[in-house]
């Protein structure tokens, strides 16, 4: 952006009274919320001092901590890639996506990926990228960039969001009810989660001691990005590393208190490894490797075969939102979707199977949620699956 363009944008933004009211309202409430959770000034100063000391220690031994992080992540089964420039980082991400023949990507909010202009890069290479953080989702629909690092759509009020949804989401009615707007986003995003071959997220803290990636969020969509697609790519800046797991509580307290005025976010994800393979896999596990997911959630299922086929056709042209929101193809008959499953002699774990795989989708059968969760989920969203969703934090994907 040149100086003239910047000045022009400034002029337009300053003349937009609605925009300025939205910002003033949103920032005012954030400041009040922050003050409420940091009401004890002396304690806050101590906490900030503690946070500063932890970060300074990290900076003083950054190279060795990064190597320790790499070693522990690698031991946990996480592959670590290094990039010196945004171009290299973008290329690495694309290579991983292509290696897994994925063409649809879901993203949790990641500011470093914004700085890398990752979305534009991937879309140029025929990969469909869907932002799943509600704020990012809204501005992506409208072709904008985030106006705030933690509240990307802070400049929009609900009337403007209602208009964007009505215009950009096919079939979405105009509604200013927040719950209904959430439901529209939820219904759209659920299909994207199911179809995605790769999930991309940022990293709030990376713990060198344990090789753990920590992600905070309030919607559950971040967790969906890191758990539903078969491949998870976490993009982080070097400064996100911390020494020890014990460093997290003060840093999290400072982060969430300062960012959103919360004592803790609704979701705190600590990711220490990919899904672990069964030590003594049963025949069902053996027949169906964990990376080929096939959830048969009625009405939303997309087998990897189906998504990659559609993906290839999408590769030739820039994906548009209307492509995403096309009605999903009717679920294929299970037999044709995964012939391997038919040959599997049994869908129940064999003796000696660790049992963990029952929750890890490798049996190619819908995991049965506990009745209470299923009922609550169906009632609230009209969606038959389980898993976290926007503003409905009680349903964790591993809750029952």
């Amino acid at each position: 952006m040149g100086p003239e363009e910047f000045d022009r944008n400034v002029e337009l933004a300053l003349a937009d009274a609605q925009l300025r009211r939205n910002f003033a309202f949103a920032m005012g409430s954030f400041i009040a919320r922050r003050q409420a959770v940091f009401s004890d000034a002396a304690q806050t100063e101590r906490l900030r001092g503690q946070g500063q000391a932890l970060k300074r220690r990290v900076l003083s031994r950054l190279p060795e901590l990064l190597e320790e992080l790499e070693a522990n992540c690698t031991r946990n089964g996480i592959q670590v890639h290094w990039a010196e420039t945004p171009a290299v980082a973008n290329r690495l991400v694309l290579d991983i996506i292509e290696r897994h023949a994925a063409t649809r990507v879901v993203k949790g909010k990641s500011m470093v990926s914004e700085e890398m202009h990752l979305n534009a890069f991937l879309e140029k290479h025929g990969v469909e990228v869907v932002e799943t953080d509600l704020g990012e989702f809204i501005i992506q629909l409208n072709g904008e960039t985030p106006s705030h690092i933690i509240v990307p759509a802070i400049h929009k009020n609900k009337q403007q969001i209602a208009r964007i949804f009505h215009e950009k989401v096919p079939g979405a009615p105009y509604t200013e009810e927040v719950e209904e707007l959430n439901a529209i986003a939820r219904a759209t995003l659920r299909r994207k989660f199911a179809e995605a071959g790769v999930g991309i997220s940022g990293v709030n803290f990376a713990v060198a001691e344990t090789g753990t990636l920590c992600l905070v969020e309030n919607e559950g969509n971040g967790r969906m990005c890191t758990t539903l697609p078969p491949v998870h790519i976490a993009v982080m800046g070097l400064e996100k590393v911390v020494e020890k797991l014990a460093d997290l509580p003060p840093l999290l307290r400072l982060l969430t208190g300062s960012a959103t005025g919360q004592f803790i976010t609704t979701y705190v994800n600590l990711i220490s490894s990919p899904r672990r393979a069964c030590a003594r896999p049963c025949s069902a596990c053996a027949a169906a490797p964990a990376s080929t997911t096939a959830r048969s959630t009625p009405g939303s299922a997309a087998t990897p075969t189906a998504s990659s086929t559609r993906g290839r056709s999408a590769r030739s042209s820039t994906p548009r939102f209307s492509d995403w929101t096309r009605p999903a193809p009717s679920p294929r008959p299970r037999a044709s979707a995964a012939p391997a499953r038919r040959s599997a002699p049994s869908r129940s774990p064999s003796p000696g199977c660790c049992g963990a795989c029952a929750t890890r989708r490798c049996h190619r059968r819908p995991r049965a949620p506990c009745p209470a969760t299923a009922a609550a989920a169906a009632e609230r969203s009209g969606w038959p699956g389980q898993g976290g969703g926007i503003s409905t934090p009680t349903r964790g994907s591993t809750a029952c």
Partner: protein
Amino acid sequence: MRRPRGRQRTAFPRKDQNPLKPNPVYFFGTCLIESFFPRAGEAAIRLIEREGVPVRFPAGQSCCGQPAYNSGYPDDARAVARQQLRAFPDDEAPIVVPSGSCAGMMKHHYPGLFAGEPDQALAERFAGRVVEWSEFMAARLGVELEDRGAPLKVTWHSSCHAMREMNVIAHSKGLIRQLSRVELVELARERECCGFGGTFAVKHPAISGALVTDKVDDIRATGAERVIAGDCGCLLNITGAIAHRGLPIRGQHLAEFIWERTHGS
């Protein structure tokens, strides 16, 4: 300089009682005070002297170097800063600065600016001596103020550097609160910048103008007759916007305000 008669009796005993009271102190005048608010500087010096502490004003001092430093010209900033290091005798006496912004530059950025330079040690000693005026008055001298003015409602503007870099707002407001007939009404959005930001106001006049409009609205909403601040950059910006809108609100530097209230003039 004339010393108020009423205070002279108490000033000297208190000086003896307080072993922390320095003798003398140096005063750094700042560009904006010299150019636009000389009375603020005079008041700041008089108030220190009234406590029985001699003030020395080294000739040859000029700018702290912040405009060049913030604009990305460290070499030019260093040249200006070096002049200040030379202008002040290299001793133990505090260097009192009636501005959170200039004090922040000299206290927190000089050591980094001179890192690896021949003057590094000198810059570090210099930085260690810098103290913002209201902190010096409240914390080092422990002044007790006697309000001689008529009842007045004022509001306080915290400059970003005084608040975030120097952390002296409690001292500044504490001085105002000592004035028994002054009612201090806080701004609703005190932590927001007034839009001056040094060279920012020149580089981005439209954004700066929007910020100061918000700030003046906030000041106006308090119903205060005066806005008091510890930084003349903010004051220049805010009083300019107030005058432009023709509002009956006066802006004043804290030192000038306190001198006016306690001197009885």
